[in-house]
């Protein structure tokens, strides 16, 4: 039982490049989330999903897209990376939306040069 797995763990991109961050959970959770964590800013919600085939915008969605084609996977895409997107990205999943614990992966550390 791996919980929430994020790949890759580290990545360096050049400005303008694209990439996809992968998140997989094996707990059969309906809800999945993508956050970014920056020094002094805390965790900020980028996008989330309340079930397979659904996505919704969070607090800071600009520059990112997401897809939830399968219940266990939640993908975060950067179409044209910018230095402002240098951050640590966390994926989480939960049984409920606010009334249940969230289970986090160990993050993807992304640097945009």
């Amino acid at each position, binding site marked *: 039982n791996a919980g929430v797995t994020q790949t890759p763990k580290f990545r360096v991109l050049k400005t303008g490049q694209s990439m996809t961050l992968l998140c997989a959970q094996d707990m059969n959770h309906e809800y999945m989330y993508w956050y970014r964590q920056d020094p*002094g800013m805390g965790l900020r919600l980028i996008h*989330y999903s309340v079930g397979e085939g659904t996505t919704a915008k969070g607090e800071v969605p600009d520059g990112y897209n997401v897809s939830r084609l399968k219940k266990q996977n939640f993908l975060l895409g950067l179409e044209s990376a910018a230095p402002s997107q240098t951050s640590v990205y*966390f994926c989480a999943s939960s049984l409920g939306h*606010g009334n249940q614990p*969230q289970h*986090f992966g160990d993050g993807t550390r992304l640097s945009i040069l």
Partner: protein
Amino acid sequence: SQKIEQNSEALNIQEGKTATLTCNYTNYSPAYLQWYRQDPGRGPVFLLLIRENEKEKRKERLKVTFDTTLKQSLFHITASQPADSATYLCALEGGGADGLTFGKGTHLIIQP
């Protein structure tokens, strides 16, 4: 605007003492409040959830209180140990569509 405040400065506590962390909020009426622990280089790990109609919740050496009048939660670690050193995050169910909103966290250091 909605705001969650946790002590931004590190909290230094001597081993064996009780550590008390504060989470204050404004312009929220959360039905649920959660506390997480985050170690360097790792994702947050859930510790405790407390509902608005619960005054106090305990788990081993951990205790959380939730005062909806003061709009404050206190998180206590009794008989603190150096292994308790970490950043502790509070999170509120804000009543909106986004689920949880997280505070910025308090860095706790337990000194031997």
